[in-house]
């Protein structure tokens, strides 16, 4: 049977001390995906990844990594690079020694070596520093460097951007993009940095309160969310009525005090809408198109989940 997913969780549940933490996580990462696992702090992202990597033996559900059950992760053929949270640097070893140790334990002889991965993450100048002498961001970079050793086909990164300076974020995002595009590496990144994830990821899964709220390609989710339009005018009721009748306008919210927000379909005619509002003398003082973002997708999904939980 051909495996569709390189990383797959179905009905993932786990409890700590009798308290359920994950209550039904479903996600599937396809080969070549640059996949963003999103969620608020404490949503269950790290726990999900730990379960998928076989680090929590009490996890239940169908969990597979590169076609191998997570419980037998040691049987996964070489080609898995992992950088979890915490970064997992041995404090008594230098960065270089940590990477050498990983190379030895992984039996890695080909592919990227220690110097190359240090250079890729911009940490060559810290190679001689011990793990406890690194800043939070440097530890993250070192963990990413370790995950890149050899020729991994699947990279699993937990909050790799956390604690990084803007330059570091750019470096890593470029790296992930390059690995995915040029080498066909599947990259899974958990994060709550939605704007950065939106920039690079092709697919995302959103986890909240231990459940998957949504999963899909970034493009489809953004299209579904729709671009927005923000209009400030003197005659808001008239303007809202005009907007509601306009082609390509999906939803109109009159927020009062002259402020209207609308959701647009991809075929909305913005110039026509503006001309109509001006022509009908609605007193438009500002007309601002807003691009849909993962932040909107995220907030909408979370709000919807919160409402359903309250009901």
């Amino acid at each position: 049977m051909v495996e569709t997913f390189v990383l797959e969780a179905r009905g993932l549940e786990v409890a700590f001390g009798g308290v359920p933490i994950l209550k039904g996580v479903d996600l599937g990462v396809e080969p070549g995906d640059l996949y963003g696992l999103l969620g608020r702090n404490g949503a269950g992202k790290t726990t999900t990844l730990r379960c998928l990597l076989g680090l929590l033996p009490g996890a239940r559900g169908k969990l597979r990594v590169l076609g191998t059950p997570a419980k037998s992760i040691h049987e996964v053929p070489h080609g898995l690079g992992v950088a979890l949270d915490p970064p997992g640097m041995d404090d008594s070893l230098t960065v270089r020694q940590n990477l050498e140790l990983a190379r030895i334990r992984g039996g890695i002889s080909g592919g990227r070596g220690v110097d190359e991965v240090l250079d890729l993450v911009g940490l060559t100048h810290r190679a001689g520093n011990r793990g406890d002498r690194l800043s939070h961001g440097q530890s993250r970079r070192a963990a990413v460097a370790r995950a890149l050793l050899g020729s991994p086909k699947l990279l699993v990164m937990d909050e790799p951007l956390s604690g990084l300076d803007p330059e570091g974020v750019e470096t890593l995002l470029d790296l992930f993009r390059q690995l995915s595009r040029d080498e066909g590496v599947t990259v899974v990144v958990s994060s709550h940095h939605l704007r950065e994830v939106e920039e690079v990821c092709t697919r995302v899964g959103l986890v909240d309160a231990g459940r998957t709220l949504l999963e899909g390609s970034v493009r489809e989710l953004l299209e579904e969310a729709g671009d927005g339009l923000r209009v400030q005018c003197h005659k808001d009721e008239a303007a809202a009525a005009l907007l509601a009748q306009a082609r390509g306008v999906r939803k109109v919210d009159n927020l009062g005090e002259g402020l209207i927000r609308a959701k647009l379909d991809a075929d909305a005619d913005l110039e026509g809408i503006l001309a109509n509002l001006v022509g009908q003398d609605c007193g438009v003082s500002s007309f601002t198109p807003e691009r849909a973002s993962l932040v909107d997708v995220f907030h909408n999904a979370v709000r919807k989940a919160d409402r359903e939980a309250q009901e």
Partner: protein
Amino acid sequence: MTGFTRALRGEAYLLTRRRGYRWALAAVFLTALLHALGSWILLEMNHRAGGPGPGESGDWNFWPRFASSARAGMFLVELFLVALVAAAFPRETGTGSVRDPLVRGISRDALVSARAVTALTLPLILGGAAIGAAALGASLCFEAGDVMEEGFAVFGEAEVRTEVMRALGHGFPALLALGALAVLVSAWLARGAVAVAMGIAVVLLPGILPGGLSSWAPWMFTSTLPGLGKESYLGKAAEFAAGYADALPWSFESVVTAGWIAPWPALLLFLAAAILVFRKRDL
């Protein structure tokens, strides 16, 4: 290369790179060496104050000084063994570094087994350092030969040497079992301090057993540890070599026998238990 082989190579790398191991080695070596030199200084001061000099007392003989300095080093070997090995997995779990080998084709069983090899090698290395430093220190300051007391030979050198060498060997099965115990508490307990405390508590247990149970103490492997053991053969041999004939009564032979036998089943039990508990551990 199998996962176990790679895990073993990783452990060898750690053994040579981690500062803790190097400091332990240096501390054990210096302790045994300085113990021998310190003994010489004390005996010399005593001699200048009118006490017995070389050749006049068993205390000036190489063999008792070597044995007692080796025992001083063994105290530290046992403490370091528990502290370094027992705290390792809890610390690695805390920092997350234990996860990396497990996603590199090394099973939990292989990782614990490789760690066990370290825990069984460490007492040989540290114990060897203690013995080597004690031999060096004692040979610099004391002469070997028959054990003399007031000008008379109390024991022949061969007799004393045999007891001391046998006592040195006798301590190693218990040390190996202690290493295995350290692996078990390391694999089992989440906090390093608790794991170390548990290991030390087991070491001290024979000394605090109530009267009815104390006859069983020699069958607890920790009784026969060369340093901290309540029934340390090395301690008795050091006294014997200094001229105390009653330090090794015939009845002690049963304790010696227990010390040869008891550590091995304990060692196997601890290692098997360590592998089993680590399989279920959240990492």
